């Protein structure tokens, strides 16, 4: 009997597993739609998100303004669409900062071990000892209010998470035969870490990164909610919630729509992250 052996790559098999998870695919589709909205906000938004039209202030949802208008007469639907741009950007960039710095620190700490490992991990313990929101607040207060500083603050507070995950993965594979083989061929430590160790520890990092983008979006929205995040009048979901809380009694829609936008984005990322975790987990794939 002829048997065809299907020779699929590791990532292809993960993708095939991921596709079977309906919730994860739904999450990915929602996220894709939000990314499209963020990119094409200029074409999709019916109004300028910053222009103040006092004659239209505090109007409820209608055909002219689908999500209503805020106290400055700005169209909330347009601001929610543009807000996707800022929120996704801060989420992705802050996770990228944490991921790159945390992974490099964790990989080098796990690989070299000894005193260097101890120093790096104690520094991570110090960062972990400060609840992330408080650390974010302190960093933003010190550096000043701006989108970049907010991303940096959220990124820094996430570094320990990646550092620990990467270190744990490196400890498992640093004595693998292919790493010994690379060492014997005379490869430098840097080359071994970047070319041989990090690519083989990526699975848990990818899962963590997907799940962290959602929490980073919430963290940034929280900073804006407290008034230390994105400066006005930039449309940002957290800042919109903060403005809306003063009008909660009679104009609750100002608060409801940006909140729904955050929830939908984070939900899609969580569904995708859960799906990726299951797809990467060999125990569940058996």
């Amino acid at each position, binding site marked *: 009997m002829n048997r065809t052996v299907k020779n699929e790559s590791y990532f292809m098999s993960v993708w095939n597993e991921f596709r079977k998870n309906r919730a994860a695919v739904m999450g990915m589709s929602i996220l894709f739609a939000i990314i499209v909205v963020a990119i094409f906000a200029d074409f999709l938004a019916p109004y300028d998100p910053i222009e103040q039209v006092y004659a239209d202030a505090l109007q409820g949802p209608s055909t002219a303004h689908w999500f209503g208008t805020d106290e400055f007469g700005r169209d909330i639907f347009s601001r929610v669409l543009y807000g996707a741009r800022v929120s996704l950007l801060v989420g992705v960039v802050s996770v990228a900062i944490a991921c790159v710095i945390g992974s490099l620190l964790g990989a080098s700490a796990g690989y070299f071990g000894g005193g260097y490992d101890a120093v790096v991990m*104690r*520094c991570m*313990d*110090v*960062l972990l*000892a*400060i*609840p*992330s*929101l*408080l*650390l974010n*607040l*302190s*960093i933003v*207060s*010190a550096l*000043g209010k701006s989108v970049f500083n907010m991303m940096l603050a959220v990124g820094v507070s996430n570094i320990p998470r990646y550092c620990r995950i990467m270190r744990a993965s490196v400890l498992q594979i640093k004595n693998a035969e292919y790493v010994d083989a690379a060492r014997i061929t005379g490869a430098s430590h840097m080359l071994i870490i970047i070319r041989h160790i990090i690519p083989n520890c990526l699975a848990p990092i990818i899962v963590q990164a997907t799940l962290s983008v*959602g929490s980073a979006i*919430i963290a940034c*929205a*929280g900073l804006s*909610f*407290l*008034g*230390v995040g994105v400066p006005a009048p930039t449309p940002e979901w*957290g800042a919109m*919630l903060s403005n*809306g*809380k003063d009008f*909660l*009694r009679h104009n*609750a829609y100002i*608060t*409801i729509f940006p*909140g729904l936008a*955050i*929830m939908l984005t*984070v*939900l899609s990322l*969580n*569904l995708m992250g859960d799906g990726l975790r299951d797809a990467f987990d060999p125990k569940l794939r058996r």
Partner: protein
Amino acid sequence: MVKYILKRFIALIPVLLGVTLIIFTLLYFTPGDPALAILSDEAATPEAIAQIHEELGLDDPFWVQYANYVWDLLHGDLGVSYLNKRPVTELLLERLPKTMTLACVSAGLAIVLGITFGVIAAVNHNSIFDNLCMLFALGGVSMPHFWQGLLLMLLFGVKLGWLPISGYGTLAQLILPALTIGYGCMAIIARMTRSSMLEVINQDYINFAHAKGQKKFIIITRHALHNALIPIITTIALQFGILLGGSVITESIFAIPGVGKLMVDSIRGSNYPVVQGGVLMIAFIYCVTNLLVDIIYAFIDPRIKTSLSNGR
């Protein structure tokens, strides 16, 4: 065991010292002159500014200022509030019980509901109960808690008028803030409980207990949950930091005069000694909680206890 606790306690000292260094450095480099924050516009003459610099040692080098700060800290002195000249320690201790009460009530809610939902989901794996519990939990991890707080306020406070929407003092005033902070933590605990229970629920000793005719409730609580507790407790300990951090926003939303609200007001008013003191106090509570959890591990897991008594 005593040696282990002592060792862990000593390990806390460099961590807390690191926290002081980070917070002190961040606030040292914060733009703006503290003397201007202390003095009113009319009183901010060059002489008055110079006097305050002299009094607070603001012209000293960074390391001298840091050493003085740590020295004062060791004597229980966290500095003086720029705003009302009251000692920061006094201000924080006055508000700490409110924050701790809120955090503990939220934690209690999160633990009880989280473990219950997690166990129900695991025991009824892949059923409608499992899906409902996990959907509820997914909502908790996806919803920003400050938005959820505003929605609770709108529904139960403004529309239905069942619960007060601000203030502190009565049990009714605690319900909405506790639900606001607790829901997210509950969701994470429920997800962890479910996955941890699923790992033990098909083990041989569980099947054996079933075969022996043991009651299902006893099997779940005494055999399965007991052995699934370690990762759940780790999650709970990590959530305590989030609860304390979450109180910062929640206290501001519900106008609760706790440490969190004090810190937000202090950041807005550039009242840095209070910010430093608040962060340090919360970090200390968080570290001590983690230490307590590590000690609890030893009591729950006999393997850890044995390895400790063997000195391994």
